[in-house]
């Protein structure tokens, strides 16, 4: 099957006072039609920047694509003008953000914000757009749509607002939906509702989803494939089973060990990866993860490992064989 989205050697720079900082360094991944790809990693690993660069919204936030290609249906989004890109946004590719409380414009009604999305890509009369908007709200599980359409964002709860955001994103039947930590700001019951909703919608409208999360639990629930990012690089990539059953990168392994174990004794301290993610301006030499890595060797301090492809998965670690052999007791 041909891929829907192909990110090829993408590097992204951010303008800071002292020049540019590389937020994403040479990443590549694909998304196939109908597939859910999860990008996981700690805060600061470049997940959100990746999503903003696919949407080309980086330019509005002092970022720029330094290198690489983003091929969507064989069109290179990197070469598009903002005007061309405008026709892709919200139409072919949509995004939902992690802050439902602030992501909707406070001074416009839900209806207006939904209809605006529809009419900016489809030439339909206002009345038809209104009906479509109502259908969308019903689709994302909102009741009393006629009342909701006339309400303002502040009259809705966080979970409701995220549903509205999803409705806006789905307005033009996008082929790809990017969900940037869509449930981080919501409480747990709402979180599972939203994830279930996304999964159902994916099957209903046949779209692909790129879900960005720092929560391995969320990834386990919805992902077909997982991309693990660390400090602006992809460190491991594979199917959800490969990643969860047999992590080959020490960082992935650490992330999995950090998931609280429901059946374990409560006194047991939760595992956490030692140290912190490095600042992008002070990246360590060699492998970016080596200062925090249990498997680090002299080689790791000196040179950076490339992504090695094998068995339909990729890993960037000098010692992945040792990691595999060192089975975790889970």
């Amino acid at each position, binding site marked *: 099957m041909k891929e829907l989205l192909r990110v090829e050697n993408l590097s992204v720079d951010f303008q800071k006072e002292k020049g540019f900082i590389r937020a994403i360094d040479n990443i590549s991944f694909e998304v196939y039609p109908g597939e859910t790809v999860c990008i996981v990693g700690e805060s600061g690993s470049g997940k959100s920047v990746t999503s903003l660069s696919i949407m080309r919204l980086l330019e509005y936030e002092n970022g720029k694509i330094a290198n690489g290609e983003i091929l969507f249906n064989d069109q290179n989004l990197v070469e598009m003008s903002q005007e061309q890109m405008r026709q892709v946004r919200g139409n072919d590719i949509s995004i939902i953000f992690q802050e439902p409380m602030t992501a909707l414009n406070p001074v416009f009604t839900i209806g207006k914000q939904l209809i605006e*999305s529809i009419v900016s890509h489809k030439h339909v009369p206002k009345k038809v757009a209104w009906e479509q908007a109502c259908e969308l709200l019903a689709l994302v599980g909102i009741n009393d749509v006629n009342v909701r359409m006339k309400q303002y964002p502040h009259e809705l709860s966080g979970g409701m607002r995220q549903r509205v955001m999803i409705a806006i994103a789905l307005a033009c039947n996008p082929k790809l939906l990017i969900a940037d930590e869509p449930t981080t700001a919501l409480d747990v019951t709402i979180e599972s509702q939203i994830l279930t909703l996304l999964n159902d919608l994916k099957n209903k409208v046949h779209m692909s989803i790129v879900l960005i999360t720092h929560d391995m639990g969320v990834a386990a629930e919805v992902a077909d494939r997982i991309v693990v990012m660390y400090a602006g690089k992809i460190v491991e990539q594979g199917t959800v089973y490969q990643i969860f059953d047999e992590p080959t990168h020490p960082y992935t392994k650490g992330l999995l060990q950090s998931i609280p174990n429901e059946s374990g004794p409560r006194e047991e301290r939760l595992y956490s990866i030692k140290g912190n993610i490095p600042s992008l301006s002070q990246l360590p030499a060699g492998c970016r993860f080596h200062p925090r890595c249990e498997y680090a060797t002299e080689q790791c301090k000196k040179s950076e490992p490339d992504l090695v492809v094998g068995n339909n998965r990729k890993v960037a670690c000098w010692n992945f064989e040792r990691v595999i052999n060192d089975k975790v007791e889970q």
Partner: protein
Amino acid sequence: MLQFAIKRLGQSIVLILIVTMITFFLMNLAPGGPSSMMRMDATEEERAAISEQLGLDDPIPIRYGKWLIDAMQGDLGLSLSSGQEVTDRILERFPFTLQLTMWTIVLSIIFGVLFGIISATNRNTWKDHTINFGSVIGLSVPSFWLAIMMILLFSVQLKWLPSSGVGEGSLLDQFKASIMPVVILSTATLPTIVRFTRSSMLEVITQNYIRTSRAKGIKERTVIYSHALRNALIPVISIIGVLIPRLLSGAVIVESVFGWPGMGRLIVEAAQSRDYNLVMGVTVIVTVLVVVCNFIVDIIYSKVDPRVKNMG
């Protein structure tokens, strides 16, 4: 809404009472009085007779009480210096000030908001720097100096515009006469609106909902002029609500330089001639204007920002 209006009315009455009381006492504490403004050769007896006739011999609180009772019945008294009704004297001047205010505020809002947006959306470019520089100049150049310079250039040298008065006869003359006063008044109000719009806009365009609106694929023009501006205008509306009553109460310096018969000159004349009734009358009118403007601003506020439902 009704509850809000009633509450507002109550607050306004208290405010007007306090303002008039302070003005009344301060004015009477100032040395001299209407009688001291009489002809130099008036005798002591004549002065005393005038004072008694005007009721100026009563203690200040009693005179304030009397004035208040009359004022509450809509009678602001007679002007002590001209003998006309105070209301008439104010109504005679007010349209001229209103004319200046309207033009100034309309120009300031249109260009102020526009420059503010240009400045914010082109942050740290030459456009932004030029507009900022212009704003600083406009705010810091004293209006009397600018007025005199403009008169020298446009009236004396070029002879394009009249140097004073409201313009006799044709509408064109009236228009020409108001150009310079309006421009001078705008040099203070326009930069204020520019700066408020700019900073408010800069804050708004970093908000998440602006990113959302871009992500929806709507036109950048719609993002700025609809999504961002609507939010950015909320604080700008409140500053306009402050500027309008300030302009309506008259621009003393500009009106004096251009011989413009507005409220600003009226209050100066009234104070100089110790025309107690006239000063009080102008004070009441100005206070009411401030209150009314604030009330209108609050209503507009609640229309622009749906989060402000529970007014008051």
